[in-house]
């Protein structure tokens, strides 16, 4: 386990010296929530939504979770193409431990990044309990691991063309966010868009977090489906990622 932790710290310390990105993400969150979110909420008049600033705050935390999850998956692929992967593979640790270190690093980055925004969001919403906070955090981590696994699962494209992989994952990220309930409730999506949003993992992540934090359940999706989809996503994509690491990464060329 000590080797796994050492490997996690090896990558994580690069993000923390100096912690530019973390502070920047927090500042972005503050500006987005207290300027953009506050002003847009004055324009939102649909009574079903309630306080849009609170709705948006949860959506933004989910977007941050998505970003960090996809960053974890993408950085693995970047390492492969920058020549770091052969170094990792040459280390005296098993592939399973290597995979565990990647997942733990993603989890640590996620925890560092969303602690402050989540605390601000919870303070803004108010009326929360330990159970609801724990359930929200568990949902966000489940979503983060699922997204990281999804990006790892798409890495087979990168082994053919790194440029194409970046184009697909970055383009896909935008679409996954827009066609989801991160920014607006499901019932307001036109039917064509709603059927696409039903395939977005963010739809289930955002609605489940909102449900446990006490938002109006009538505008949210059935939590049973949300739990099932998020659990299936995390297990299946992480399983796929582990398979890829075991089978496909050996002999990846650096470019």
């Amino acid at each position, binding site marked *: 386990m000590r080797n796994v932790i050492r490997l996690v710290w090896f990558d994580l310390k690069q993000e923390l010296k100096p912690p530019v990105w973390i502070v920047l993400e927090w500042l972005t969150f503050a500006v987005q929530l207290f300027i953009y979110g506050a002003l*847009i909420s004055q324009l*939102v008049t649909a009574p079903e939504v309630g306080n849009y600033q609170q709705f948006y705050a949860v959506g933004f935390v989910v977007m941050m979770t998505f970003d960090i999850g996809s960053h974890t998956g993408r950085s693995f692929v970047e390492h492969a193409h920058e020549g770091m992967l052969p170094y990792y593979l040459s280390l005296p640790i098993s592939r399973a431990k290597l995979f565990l270190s990647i997942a733990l690093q993603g989890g640590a980055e996620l925890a560092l990044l969303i602690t402050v925004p989540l605390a601000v969001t919870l303070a803004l919403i108010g009326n929360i309990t330990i159970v609801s906070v724990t359930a929200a955090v568990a949902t966000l981590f489940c979503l983060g691991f699922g997204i990281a696994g999804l990006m790892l699962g798409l890495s087979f494209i990168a082994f053919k063309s790194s440029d194409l992989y970046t184009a697909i994952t970055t383009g896909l990220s935008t679409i996954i966010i827009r*066609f989801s309930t991160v920014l*607006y409730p499901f019932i*307001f999506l036109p039917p064509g868009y709603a059927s696409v949003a039903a395939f977005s993992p963010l739809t289930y992540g955002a609605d489940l977090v909102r449900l446990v934090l006490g938002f109006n359940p009538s505008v949210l999706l059935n939590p049973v489906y949300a739990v099932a989809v998020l659990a299936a996503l995390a297990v299946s994509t992480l399983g796929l990622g582990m398979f890829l690491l075991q089978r496909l990464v050996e002999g990846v060329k650096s470019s």
Partner: protein
Amino acid sequence: MTELMRILRLARNDFSYFFRTKWLMAVLLSLNLSDMLVVALVYNKLMRFNYFQFFIPGIVIMGLFAAALDTGRRIWLAFREGVIHYYLSLPISLNGVVIAYLLAGGSAAIVYSSSLLLIALIVLPAQAIWSALILLPFLFVLAIGLAGISAALAALASTHGEYFFAYQQIVQIVLLTFSTVFYPIDLISKYLPLPLVTIASANPLSLAADAMRQYAFAGQPIQPSFLLNILLASVPLALIGAISYLTALHLVRVKGKL
């Protein structure tokens, strides 16, 4: 070959690099088109206010801004990868290199945002397409100004990638949030303090978005003073960028590095 021809060749090279960067095109197109065809449409259902009509011109300006800002990334890459030494070895003056980059940045932004404008004209019929065409040269000057900001950030960040992208993100968020791209000025003046309202009103992105809304889509007659304001807000930005980039190039020529 004259200096002008060399500048144009260098500008063409940088211009084509923008459109050949696949991931960048994927990000910009997916972001702007999904904002236009999904976010604007769904937000419209959440509001009594016609947000679709309001936001679509704003998205065209957002596209112009994002494409112009990419100039800085290309300049920063040239510093980091050492391509700048190749440019310095070319038979072209330092001023020529600066002009070529700003021209390329402005041209890439105007071509990209014009494609968004075409899509906007399909989804939201404009009252005065001629006004949109009259606005384009002014938007081109604005794009050069925004490319200038980006060039200044690249020169400031030197070869530190993390700082360049951090500066770029800060500028992007501040300029977009404190503008009328997303919400009308009446709303901003109701909820934000006066200094911030003044910043939002004078913000070149607000001027461009409002001009696009009023003149191209609402069909109001063009006010020359409004166009002059766009020029007055853009030219200083272009000059700041040009001076910063020129200073950085001069440093590289004298010291070999930034």
